């Protein structure tokens, strides 16, 4: 099988589906979404809690509910094909995509453009090195979430959660609802890495203690976890001798962060950003390789799926326009740098056509390095201030989104910087 697609989309999570819909809305005639799982929807199918979609769909949805909405948008559209149970093995720089499906065998698809939407995966114990035995009972929070919410068994009964990332917090509540005892949540940083709402409704509501600046120094048990030793850490995150105490548990859930899934991006030799762990993109979500776009958690880890959809719609639109030859090629590139307390900013560059189209939007998505109160976010180009936004609170766990007003586009020089002013 060999056919020329306008847009080939790798990954059928909310990013892939939103990109497909937007490519369709913007005139692409032949679109395909390839997903390795047995169904579309991505990781949201296991995130059964609510709170999704208020901004994107204007109604409050659960994870599966949000996935359902995204699937509804693409289904029954002649121009959009979807393939499940199909794993993309390789993407080549000439936009040939090699995939394998148990029934159809090896597939070779050719595209005018490709959008990468493979999502992210969890950091594991190996990635953070916990000393101690290697007994059974240590899981990543996401693996536990899949077990409890989709497969129907419990990872254990007395739980400790390491890391205050959102998935861990959500799992603290989930395990409590299943009748388990969640003993504690430990966070090595002096601040939580999850959304405030999740601290309130997942820990405080169930009287689960959160120990900030604490970590696991040993895991005990031979066959199965029987407990852990915890210690307080200093500013350099090294355990302070004498502060150790033990907690009894049969299960440790790791919620120590997510990393974009970028094996395919690396295979393509795309420019990568070492801080986001994703490909460098411009405001259209085009990567360093012409005609290759990326969106969602593959670019940078999002906490709000609504932003994932928004970003993917941009990628879908510009991939569709590119496939139809409707994008200007007379461009200059403006570098975007994150400075002064801003850790990451996506896009990392902006493509400015000589003639800026009326519908051009430049929206920046940022994460700060440490929590702050009452700061100003300043976007500048040289001495020109493009935007000055007071922020009552800024936390590393909450992505900040701002849009550069179109009226300021003519002030954009060679470079843009985004930073905090205290």
């Amino acid at each position: 099988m060999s056919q020329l697609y306008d847009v080939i989309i790798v990954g059928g999570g909310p990013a892939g589906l939103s990109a497909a819909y937007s490519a369709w809305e913007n005139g692409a005639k032949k679109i395909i979404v390839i997903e390795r799982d047995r169904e579309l929807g991505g990781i949201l199918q296991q995130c059964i809690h609510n709170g999704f979609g208020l901004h994107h769909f204007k109604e409050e949805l659960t994870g599966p509910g949000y996935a359902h909405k995204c699937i509804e948008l693409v289904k029954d559209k002649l121009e959009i094909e979807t393939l499940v149970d199909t794993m993309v093995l390789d993407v080549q720089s000439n936009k040939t995509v090699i995939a394998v499906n148990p029934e159809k065998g090896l597939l070779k698809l050719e595209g005018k453009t490709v959008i990468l939407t493979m999502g992210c995966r969890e950091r594991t114990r190996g990635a953070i090195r916990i000393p101690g035995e290697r007994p059974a009972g240590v899981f990543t929070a996401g693996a536990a979430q899949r077990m409890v919410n989709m497969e129907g068994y419990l990872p254990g009964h007395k739980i400790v959660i390491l890391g205050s990332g959102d998935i861990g917090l959500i799992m603290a509540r989930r395990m409590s609802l299943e009748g388990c005892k969640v003993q504690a949540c430990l966070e090595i940083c002096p601040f939580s890495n999850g959304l405030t709402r999740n601290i309130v409704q997942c820990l405080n509501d169930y009287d689960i203690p959160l120990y900030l600046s604490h970590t696991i120094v040993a895991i005990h048990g031979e066959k199965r976890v029987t407990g852990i030793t915890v210690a307080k850490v200093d500013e350099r995150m090294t355990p302070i001798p004498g502060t150790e105490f033990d907690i009894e548990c049969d299960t440790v859930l790791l919620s120590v962060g997510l990393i974009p899934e970028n094996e395919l991006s690396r295979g393509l030799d795309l420019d990568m950003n070492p801080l986001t762990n994703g490909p460098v993109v411009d405001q259209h979500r085009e990567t360093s390789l012409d005609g290759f776009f990326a969106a969602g958690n593959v670019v940078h880890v999002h906490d709000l799926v609504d932003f994932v959809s928004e970003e993917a719609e941009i990628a879908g639109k510009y991939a569709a326009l590119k496939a139809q030859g409707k994008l200007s090629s007379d461009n200059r590139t403006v570098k975007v740098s994150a400075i002064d307390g801003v850790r990451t900013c996506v896009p990392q560059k902006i493509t400015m056509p000589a003639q800026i189209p009326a519908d051009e939007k430049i929206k920046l998505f940022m994460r700060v390095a440490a929590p702050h109160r009452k700061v100003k976010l300043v976007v500048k180009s040289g001495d020109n201030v493009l935007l000055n936004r007071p922020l009552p609170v800024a936390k590393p766990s909450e992505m900040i989104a701002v849009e550069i007003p179109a009226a300021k586009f003519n002030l954009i020089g060679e470079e843009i910087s985004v930073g905090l002013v205290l």
Partner: protein
Amino acid sequence: MAVETRVMNCIMCPMGCELTVTIEDGNVTNVTGNTCPRGPIYAKNEVTAPKRMLTTTVAIEGGALPLLPVVSADVLPKERILDCACYLRGVKVQAPVKTGDVIVENILDLGVNIIASRDMELHEQ
């Protein structure tokens, strides 16, 4: 008159706006810091009678998965959440189910239905 200000985070969506709530004699008289109108509603409930949504699963037979995710159609009293979750652990339904189907009507007489949050088709073995 007793006037108190309380700072709390709205939990109605992931924005988690920090609300400053003025309480006069047990009544919320002013809320600032909210991005949308749901903020003040949350603050009023939180001060008088805290409520929460419930999301959990029930067993399902004949579907591609052994579990069906469910959600409360509206908020439930916070102190009854664990009772409702416990009750739902004993519920079993039969595929097929559509998103929005009522799984338990008027759970524990609290006046709220529990509904399916995804489709689950009949799965041929």
